[in-house]
């Protein structure tokens, strides 16, 4: 689609030829009114984007600017504390993402495709963990699953499971704060899929579950991937709920954010920034690789609008 001719800007409009208007197209007849009307939103589009992007990126850059001269990267990477924290972060966030996707997808589907009494209430209840200050979330988790919590004694006597201070608690804390992001995004994604396509799949003898996998999921992939990224990122940066519910113990519950915090606590801000840079670089790589893989899996055109 979107044809090319002549020399074009590097930045190309994917879908709307409006912006392909070249200066000569107005043939000296362009009415100023129309020109203005077309120009100002475009100016706004770029200006607003530039402002927000600068706002988001300058602080990130600041971390590196401060961290790099300290030259402590190699030391940090060699530090077993850092390595263990990084490894724990990657493992627990992967598990969190898995849980969020496996259990969150049904919830999102339910909310998107079924109509039942209290649906809106449920939808809103699910949003509340996002509202809670993380430390409160941690306290809430303790009160629910802790030794004296609502479910804690049952878990302990029936399953012999004491959750706080374990790696499981880290995953639970992360899931608690991150899963709602996946659910919200997936729900919006499912809602954007034309139900007619699902109906037709049914007439073709394809079961509901197969339809879900082969039609609904591919068509809502951008939303699902966006949700997965948000949930993963939120989990990776999670600090307050984790330290409250899981505590801070190297190799078991000390994730990167906890390690960074502890470094800051000991008055070594620069070292903390180095760890933060490592976290940023690792996340960036993971995200880029993940997107590349997804793009590859979808053959780059998995979406109708691609």
């Amino acid at each position, binding site marked *: *689609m979107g044809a090319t001719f002549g020399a074009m800007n590097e930045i190309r409009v994917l879908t709307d030829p409006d912006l392909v208007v070249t200066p000569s197209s107005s043939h000296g007849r362009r009415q100023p009114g129309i020109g203005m009307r077309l120009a100002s939103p475009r100016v706004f589009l770029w200006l607003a984007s530039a402002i927000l992007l600068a706002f988001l990126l300058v602080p990130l850059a600041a971390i590196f600017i401060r961290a790099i001269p300290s030259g402590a990267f190699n030391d940090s990477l060699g530090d077993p504390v850092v390595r263990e924290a990084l490894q724990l972060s990657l493992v627990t966030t992967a598990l969190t993402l898995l849980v969020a996707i496996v259990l969150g997808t049904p919830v999102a589907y339910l909310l998107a495709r079924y109509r039942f009494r209290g649906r809106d209430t449920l939808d809103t209840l699910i949003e509340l963990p996002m509202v809670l200050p993380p430390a409160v979330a941690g306290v809430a988790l303790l009160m629910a699953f802790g030794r004296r919590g609502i479910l804690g004694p049952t878990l302990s006597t029936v399953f012999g499971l004491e959750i706080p201070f374990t790696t499981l608690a880290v995953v639970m804390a992360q899931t608690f704060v991150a899963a709602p992001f996946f659910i919200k995004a997936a729900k919006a994604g499912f809602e954007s899929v*034309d139900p*007619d*396509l699902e*109906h*037709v*799949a*049914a*007439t*073709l*003898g*394809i*079961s*509901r579950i*197969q339809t879900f996998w*082969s*039609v609904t999921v*591919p*068509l809502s992939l951008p939303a699902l991937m966006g949700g997965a990224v948000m949930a993963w990122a939120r989990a990776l940066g999670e600090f307050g709920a984790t330290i409250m519910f899981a505590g801070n113990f190297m190799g078991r519950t000390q994730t990167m954010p906890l390690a960074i915090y502890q470094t800051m606590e000991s008055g070594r801000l620069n070292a903390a920034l180095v760890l933060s840079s490592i976290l940023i670089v690792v996340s960036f790589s993971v995200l880029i690789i993940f997107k590349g893989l997804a793009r590859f899996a979808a053959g780059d*055109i*998995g*979406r*109708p609008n691609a």
Partner: protein
Amino acid sequence: MQPAISAGPMLDVDITKRLATLDLAVVFSLDAEVLALFGPSGSGKSMTLKMIAGIETPDRGHIRSAEHTFFDSGAGVNLAPQRRRVGYVPQHYALFPHLTALENVTFPLRKGLRWPAGRARDRAHELLEMFGLADRAHARPRQLSGGQQQRVSLGRALAGEPDILLLDEPFAALDAPIRAELRQEFRAIQQRLQIPVLFVTHDLEEAASLAGRMAVVIDGAVRQLDLTRTILDRPVDRQVAQFVGARNIVPGAVRRHSTGICADTPIGAIGIAATSLKDGARADIIIRPDAIRIIRPGRPLDQLRDATMVSGTISDLIDHGTRIAVFATVEGTLLEASLSPTAAGRLELRIGDPIQLAILQAYLHVIPAGA
């Protein structure tokens, strides 16, 4: 798949559904045959198909195939679409936008019937080939023309060799040659599979040439279900008549006289062959355009037995390509006659010319007035 051995019809439909501006109430049944659903836009044809496919739920009634009850409001049955084994081509194709043409066709084979990949692909290729799409197999729907999309949808519906075919204007986006070819294919498929095929069309010629019988759906009800020829020749009411292309409907009163029956109409007394209507009954006389012959002045009339002659003036001529419509004003009433281009050329007609029309008695149809 074994041919069903069954006493009843292979598809029996008797359903109602209340829609915003329409109360749908359709009743019909069909065997291993092709039935056309023919009717005005918005009369409920697509909705009927959707209810049979299981995509929409009727309010009340039943739908039964030879082997299954699809739906029965009395018994509380509503079979999942997956288990109805219908091949459904929706009016807007509903192709899967993320799959190529080939994958769209392979889809029901792989996921529905769980065929091995190779076999499914071979079969899909075969279908695409049959529909002239071999070279577009790897294009996605957005990269296909309208007609190509429609053919992919046809291929997809056929792939699983369904027990019933439901086609919603399946050839509407196709040109005449492909259309003719596909009709041929469908006739062959239907004969091979011996299944009921229900298809919606707006094209009378298509209904006539593909379907044995035709159901005329008007305002949500099946008004007439019969052989196509019969509906064309003897529509049950004025609306059906108009809809199947009766251009001339002249009101009149039946009168029996010594040598036969005629109807007194604004264009004079027209002889009619037979009617069960009583003497003096008000009636509508349907005169098909091709039941009017145009007579060049001075032409011998001997061969035109059983015809009523009227005279008028040519008020308009419209060239429809394969036929020419001649509009003539007779006693203030506009009559439309139809000629082949060659005949029209021979007659050298011009607007304003006086003209003689022979209304052939054998092709008239009389329906009670107000029906």
